[in-house]
């Protein structure tokens, strides 16, 4: 058969190409070439473990801790919102955090959102309404870059889904600021560049964001919880998990219901299948 003959020729040719032109130098480099250079900063990166005890919404049976979400919202409002937007979240969504309708109205009013003067048509600002979305801290990305040493603060609506293991990542990042081990840094000549900050949990350890949550008691929690750096970080990480996926808990609960139904239906389907085939299968010898 000519196809088989051609196939054998083609297969050998492809193999030959890979071996001669790519594989041989590749093996040589791997065996004898210099080890790939790693940036010195990698030596200082530490993988974070998230908050002690994890989050209330972790796991298949997780639940929101509404007190924590409200505290996290307070941290966002008093700290993060100065630079970071939350553009996919509307004030009306705060109802899901356990606020009453009146509280949401008042909360919305406490924010200033862009508006249009009804008499002149000029852009102006007005107090927010529940249907408004969280306002952008900067009018556009150029303004954001200019105000932040050229680093644009990302929108936080989806942050915990936009990073691997996002809830823990946010917590680790907020608690990862500090100084590199001075001895080690001196040895490899590592220095945090000017205008950046050392953060052992940031992938390249030099982050443009100044430590946002720096001291205990930076916010005063309405519910009296002690506002340690760790507590505030955990609360805001929980809040951002909610903003990234408001349907998280509903999703898991629906999942259990669907799963239970499917298990029941599948057992029935199996029995039905066995019933249909009874008599078709030979007796095992």
């Amino acid at each position, binding site marked *: *058969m000519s*196809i*088989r003959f051609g*196939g*054998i020729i*083609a*297969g*050998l040719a*492809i*193999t030959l*190409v*890979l*071996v001669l*032109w*790519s*594989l041989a130098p*590749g*093996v040589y*480099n*791997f065996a004898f070439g210099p080890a*790939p250079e790693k940036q010195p900063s990698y030596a200082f990166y530490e993988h974070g473990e998230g908050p002690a005890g994890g989050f209330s919404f972790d796991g*298949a049976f997780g639940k929101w801790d509404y007190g924590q979400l409200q505290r996290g919202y307070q941290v966002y409002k008093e700290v993060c919102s100065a630079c970071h937007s939350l553009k*996919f979240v509307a004030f009306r*969504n705060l109802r899901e955090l356990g606020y009453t309708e009146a509280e949401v109205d008042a909360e919305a009013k406490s924010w200033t959102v862009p508006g249009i003067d009804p008499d002149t048509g000029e852009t102006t600002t007005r107090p927010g309404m529940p249907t408004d979305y969280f306002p952008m801290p900067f009018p556009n990305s150029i303004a954001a870059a200019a105000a932040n040493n050229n680093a644009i603060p*990302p*929108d936080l*609506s*989806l942050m915990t*889904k*936009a*990073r*691997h293991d*996002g809830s823990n990542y946010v917590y680790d990042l907020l608690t990862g600021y500090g100084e590199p081990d001075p001895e080690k840094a001196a040895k490899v000549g590592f220095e945090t560049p000017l205008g950046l900050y050392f953060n052992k949990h940031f*992938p390249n350890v030099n982050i443009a964001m100044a430590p946002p949550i720096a001291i205990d008691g930076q916010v005063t929690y309405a519910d009296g919880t002690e506002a340690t750096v760790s507590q505030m970080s955990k609360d805001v990480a929980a809040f951002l998990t909610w903003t*990234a*996926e*408001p*349907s998280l808990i509903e*999703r*898991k609960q*629906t*999942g*259990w219901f*669907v*799963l239970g139904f*499917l298990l029941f239906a*599948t057992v029935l*389907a*199996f029995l*039905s*299948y066995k*019933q*249909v*085939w009874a*008599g*078709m*299968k*030979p*007796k095992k*010898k």
Partner: protein
Amino acid sequence: MSFAWAKQYEPKSAFTKWIDEKLPFPRLVYNAVGAGYPVPRNLNYMWNFGVLAGFCLMIQIVTGVVLAMHYAANQAVAFGTVEHIMRNVNYGWMMRYAHANGASFFFIVIYLHIFRGFFYSSYKAPREMIWLLGVVIFLLMMATAFMGYVLPWGQMSFWGAQVITGLFSAIPLVGEPLQVWLLGGFAPDNAALNRFFSLHFLLPFVIAGVVILHIWALHIPGSSNPTGVEVKQESDTVPFHPYYTSKDGFGLGVFLIFFTLFVFFLPNVLGHPDNYIEANPLSTPALIVPEWYFYPFYAILRAFTGDLTIPFTGIVLIPAKLLGVIGMFGAILVWFFLPWLDKSPVRSGHYRPLFRKFFWFGLMPTMAALFYLGGAHAEEPYIMLSQIFTAYYFMHFLVILPIISQIEVPKPLPFSITEGVLGSDKPGTTSGGGKIDPDSVVDGRPGTATDGSLQPAE
């Protein structure tokens, strides 16, 4: 088609008779998945995946039509409309997660369906056309899945569109203009997003059409089976309904349990976090990889790192970029030639000792390795490993299979499917042969003729 003992559709009421005269649709269904389609009685669970794949296509079309009601293919708002679906639309999050994970599960099912075909040589005569149509479906699925992944307009969407259309720029002379034409611009933007949406909506219906051809072609020779011996007599078969409808129903339940676990508990593990960042033409994510189901082919693409030159002259025959593209498409195109590369008269891997060794210890580890390597960073040792496994991949199909089919001594085949199942072909000697009708055990009845290559190997 079908075997001589296939039951004919008999409309009972006056109404069904009337329908049967005007539009014999019930007859069509009866002959396709009813008692009118006799199926080998010995199919194992690997034969569940065809029906499951059809079910996946239905999930994708239904959820996809729903999502299209709320989505807008405009680069300014596409990312926002996906979030609108997730946050505001009633059950929108469920629809979107079902659609995104549905694509992954569709590919899981299809890969198992294809590997079933590899092991049991389902591509061999008289079923070449089924196989060829199947490869066409797979290619269409890849195109559809790629374009669907662009629609949320996240970072991976954008850079995926950039990189995949960049493949076409490797083609000599027309490559660069071709990429610009495909994108309708110099970079992925509104024009590209709109056409991808249009085609992503269209192609699933094309797939459905080819699936109909695939099933039509299947019903001419009938289903293959784990022994690879053709159906000879009525006792070799059972009617599709209720025997395989019940089995597929059970299989569907198991499939849906796994699907549910992902949709409701792990909806994002098969995706990339970067795609929750809105597309940014000025910054590429650290690791650009396609969705997991493209990994093997992506690994093959990246395996070709050197230009093909005439030795000692420095004249470049084929640049590395083009070699990679040829290799990637060649990896699938080679499947088209499988029926003619593997000419062993025996189908089932169970009766082919040498073939089976190369399948389990050659092809399967290679596929597993390529799946892993396609998602790894483009650095050593992963590039070198990709090259080794890519070389084996092509060797397996183009060199090893043709040679095996020449030199292998197959194990003796059972005389018939019934013998393979029951250990004896004589009705009445088995304890479970309630379905065997003695009158039907007659060789040479019309429709039972098998091609000569399938006789037991003595």
